[in-house]
């Protein structure tokens, strides 16, 4: 019997990792399959040849191959990688925050982190204002986004100086901050030039078009900065999920853990938001789909959510490229994934949360 439990325990852990790896592999496969997907007709093998040429720095010979090179190598490549990284960061953040705050509605969006980052960026784009001076334009945007993405966390820390902040209060604070930022962003939008406005509009829905290879290292950095600390804390997050008092008596300071994780999530999310805008829904839904497959232990849940988030964003972007290339990807995510999510909720064995 004991052996049964031990082997069941190990099998469950292994299966969680296997599931996450399998889904992640699908995401990687989708990156390759997505390379030729565009409005002009490019074959799969042709796309790879162009992509490898691009990697080797081969100059295109004529206008047609120049165009194809631009689409396959310069646009679709970083676009796919960006989509995968954005999905991974947002979904992993959502999974950890839901457990830490013990609320199924928590994610970088509902906690105000995303809208804070967007506001910081909009301020930088429209007024050229950067909180930290003497940075180039892009770094200025990123640091702005990061600093404003910390505002919800700062509000929570500020309130906790006066009274005990319950997890429910944290999410309510986040929603309040989110509305404030959204309102301020809307106000700024009124003063904008039409071209910037269109850009900001698509950011506020979330878009992965227009990414370049230069942004790829920053996407990888965002993934590392978010996933490494969250995975390091996975066991502690599970313990805090069962109640603050119990966690404290197991040697964990729950509020400190929440703030540390909020900071990690803010860093990752603000980088993502600078390039893609606020992609909602992924951070909320991908973890719940993952829960249905691997359960709610963070050791499996965080990687599985990240992998599912990647597939969601990239899959939606592929659909966008095929149907209506000018639409922001956020629209398609909501359109495709909501029905999938409702289906998962119905098919779920137990009413878990």
């Amino acid at each position, binding site marked *: 019997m*004991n052996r049964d439990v031990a082997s069941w325990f190990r099998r469950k852990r292994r299966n969680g990792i296997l599931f996450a790896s399998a889904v992640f592999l699908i995401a990687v496969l989708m990156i390759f399959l997505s390379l030729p997907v565009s409005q002009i007709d490019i074959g799969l093998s042709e796309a790879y040849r162009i992509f490898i040429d691009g990697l080797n720095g081969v100059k295109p010979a004529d206008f047609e191959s120049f165009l194809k090179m631009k689409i396959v190598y310069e646009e679709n490549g970083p676009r796919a990688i960006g989509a995968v990284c954005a999905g991974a960061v947002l979904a992993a953040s959502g999974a950890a925050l839901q457990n830490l705050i013990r609320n199924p509605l928590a994610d970088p969006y509902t906690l105000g982190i995303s809208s804070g980052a967007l506001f910081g960026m909009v301020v930088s784009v429209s007024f050229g204002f950067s909180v930290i001076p003497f940075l180039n334009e892009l770094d200025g945007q990123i640091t702005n986004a990061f600093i404003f993405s910390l505002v919800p966390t700062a509000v929570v820390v500020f309130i906790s100086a006066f009274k005990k902040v319950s997890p429910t209060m944290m999410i309510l604070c986040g929603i309040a901050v989110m509305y404030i930022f959204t309102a301020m962003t809307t106000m700024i939008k009124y003063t904008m030039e039409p071209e910037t406005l269109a850009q900001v509009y698509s950011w506020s829905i979330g878009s992965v078009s227009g990414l370049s290879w230069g942004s790829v290292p920053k996407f990888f950095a965002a993934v590392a900065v978010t996933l490494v600390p969250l995975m390091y804390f996975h066991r502690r997050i599970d313990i805090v999920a069962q109640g603050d008092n119990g966690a404290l008596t197991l*040697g964990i300071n729950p509020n400190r853990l929440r703030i540390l994780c909020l900071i990690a999530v803010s860093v990752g999310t603000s980088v993502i938001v600078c390039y893609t805008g606020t992609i909602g829904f992924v951070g909320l839904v991908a973890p719940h789909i993952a829960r249905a497959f691997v359960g*709610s232990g963070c050791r499996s849940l965080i990687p599985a959510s990240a992998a599912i988030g990647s597939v969601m964003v990239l899959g939606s972007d592929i659909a966008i490229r095929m149907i209506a290339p000018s639409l922001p990807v956020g629209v398609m995510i909501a359109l495709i994934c909501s029905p999938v999510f409702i289906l998962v909720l119905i098919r779920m064995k137990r009413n878990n949360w």
Partner: protein
Amino acid sequence: MEAENKNDDKTAKGGIVIDIDGLVFGYRSFPILKGITVKFDRPGMVSIVGPNGVGKSTLIHCMNKILTPREGSVLIDGEDVRNISVKSLAKIMGYVPYTVTNTFPISVIDTVMMGRHPHSKFGSLDEDLEISYDMLDRLGIADLSMRQLNELSAGQLQKVILAKGLAQQPRVLLLDEPTSNLDVKHQLGVARLLAQISRESGMLTIMICHDLNIAAKYSDKVMMMSEGKVFAYGTPEEVFTRENIRQVYDVDCEVIEDQGRPHIILRD
């Protein structure tokens, strides 16, 4: 009220000493604990009894740093808990709360494994699994190991939380009404097991208990609280008298002897 002189034999055997001195705690202006002074100086089972709202849980929370007392001190082996980090405290003191939050349920064995957190290190997984399973087995719920928390009854859940606390293998275990959701058979079983583990491993078990007969049957010492103060502290025979129960609970009763322990029959 105190019986400290006649027990020199057991204190030597590595028993932990908790010395609570003049403990005062209140929310804003409303005082809950009004000066608690008590010393737990040998392993065994101590039950805290008293009517609702007298500060039993508050006292326990002041002992394990969930709450910070306004005045007074809690010394563990001579060291003030204020100076002990939560991490170090977790290695010597365990806590079994009334219930756990269950927003995102995980499996029973995963939950009990959490109790091993203060001791676990790289490569201790097998040992942690072994201890966790053993505790479930001793509580008679090993067959629930692979179930999810949300599939359990209230009584089963309470036993899982208890197993989590026991898996921590602390030198002091604080329990907040560990038998409240159990049927009579399992109330007796759990109380007996706690008394047995306390005896075997030299653990000091401090349990809040509303069932006076359970407290009387299994405790080495009973602490009766009334209005934020210690009303009586001593052996079950010393504490459970008709007079004490009438004063503290405002209930008339008859105390008889049963199997060498006091047994309380409540009268209307």
